[in-house]
């Protein structure tokens, strides 16, 4: 019984979310292989082969795999799926895009966003924005799974000596074409991987005022996040969004500034180790999940906090 984990990467580097997906695969108790599909991505295959517990890496290289289009990746996964009982990917936008397509082609259910493994057919996943935790059992012969990265500690990135085996590409379906990408450029850590996150909400008031949040983030070496309200108001791009429909994060420290704490937002951050809330409304629901709450005007408290962090 072996599991196949679909690697996420940008053709140069293995995305660390893959290490969390590998951890979930290992929790199922299987031997684990990895599929790396891309273009000029041999370095990624080597990195995947070194990850803890990896037996073998299947490497498929073709120009039409360069941008991980679901229409082309799904048939490739189907072509190699036969020996595997479990097919897993991290629940990133890539995994969420591709895996249901794979599941449908295999005529099986997908188990989305798992945060726990009970047995090789029974898994734990949040529903209703994380307000309910469901345990579900699959009746399918093959299980297609996406893994919520915050649910599993990553396996070690190095130490294993898995083999790398090149496999044939499947023909380009011609259904879709990559036109371009606008990636948010930032010197700050990525939200998904950051140890500390400072997030701003509607209370921040404007795009310009977000400089306050950024200044605090930079003081702490933190990533910058936002609530849906702040995104909807246009203060920051959508990929900053933490919540049910944005990113789900669980850093060591999460500082929520001017965020009231809607269900939707709490769903994305309430597994953080330590939560700090700064809000002028002492009744705000965010204080219900915060370890440390500071009631006050963020425009006064945030600069004061930056200053206080400077003092030893």
């Amino acid at each position, binding site marked *: 019984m072996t599991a196949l984990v679909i690697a996420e990467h940008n053709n140069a580097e293995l995305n660390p979310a893959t290490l969390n997906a590998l951890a979930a695969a290992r929790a199922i108790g299987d031997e684990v292989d990895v599929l790396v599909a891309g273009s000029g991505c041999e370095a990624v295959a080597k990195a995947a082969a070194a990850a803890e517990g990896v037996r073998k890496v299947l490497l498929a290289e073709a120009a039409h795999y360069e941008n991980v289009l679901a229409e082309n990746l799904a048939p490739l996964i189907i072509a190699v799926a036969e020996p595997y009982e479990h097919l897993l990917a991290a629940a990133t936008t890539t995994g969420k*895009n591709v895996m*249901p397509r794979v599941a449908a082609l295999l*005529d099986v259910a997908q188990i989305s*966003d798992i945060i726990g493994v009970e047995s090789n057919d029974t898994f734990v996943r949040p529903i*209703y924005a994380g307000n*309910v935790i469901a345990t579900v059992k699959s009746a399918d012969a093959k299980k297609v799974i996406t893994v919520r990265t915050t649910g599993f500690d990553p396996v070690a990135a190095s130490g294993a000596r898995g083999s790398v085996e090149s496999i044939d590409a499947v023909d380009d379906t011609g259904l879709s074409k990559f036109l371009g990408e606008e990636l948010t450029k930032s010197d700050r850590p990525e939200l998904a991987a950051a140890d500390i996150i400072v997030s701003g909400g509607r209370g921040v008031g404007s795009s310009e005022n977000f400089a306050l949040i950024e200044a605090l983030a930079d003081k*702490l070496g933190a990533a910058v996040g936002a609530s849906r309200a702040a995104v909807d108001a246009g203060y920051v791009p959508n990929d900053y969004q933490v919540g049910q429909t944005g990113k789900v994060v669980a850093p060591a*420290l999460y500082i929520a500034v001017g965020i009231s704490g809607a269900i939707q937002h709490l769903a994305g951050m309430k597994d953080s180790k330590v939560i700090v809330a700064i809000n002028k409304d002492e009744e705000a629901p965010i204080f219900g999940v915060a370890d*440390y709450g500071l009631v006050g005007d963020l425009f006064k408290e945030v600069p004061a906090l930056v200053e206080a962090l400077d003092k030893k």
Partner: protein
Amino acid sequence: MKILVAVKRAIDYNVKARPKADGSGVDLANVKMSMNPFDEIAVEEAIRLQEAGKAEETVAVSIGPKQCQETLRTAMAMGVDRGILVETNDEMQPLAVAKLLKAVVEREEPGLVLLGKQAIDDDSNQTGQMLAALLGWPQGTFACGLELGDGSAAVRREIDGGIQTVELKLPAVITSDLRLNEPRYVKLPNIMKAKKKPLDTLTTDELDVDVAPRLSLVKVAEPPARKGGIKVPDVETLVDKLRNEAKVI
């Protein structure tokens, strides 16, 4: 071109769901239900395409109990031309929904199918992708922009690091993300008008689809509660707590 838009009746987004005391499921008794917010965005997009002259007809489809008629009426009050209800009282999981939608697509032959990217009840985020797979169509998931060309669609997609743009051959399946548009408010006269629009009802048997659930619910539970925290009087205390108590900075 005809556009088919799928809408789900789901718990209202302002309502906090709770497990039943015996853990056998989610307590939905007397809970307010509404159109899944992402599907509302899909409906709005369909109507805008029609208003822009890109589509001749818009059809909404919903799968579930009789009450889904209300959801379809909402879509029609927003502006969709007619509705199709696939009526069933059984639990429909995403694969079954995708198979039913495929059967409806084969009857209606739309050039584009729009859906919300996920429903806020089971948070599966699967149906659109599965439907595209079953039809052998391309998929534009998590769309924040959509431009219809001649035989193709350019879709701007919300991805983890930013925005990706892809070109899809039509027919295609598109799933909407939050920023695709802002759905309109329904005006009272339109609610009245919607009552007169055609609404057909089909059954899962008529569509001859295997809708057996593949996942069984073992149990549901409340998530582990966070312990109540403390309020700190000032930033100095906060920094001290973070350094010396929580030890996170």
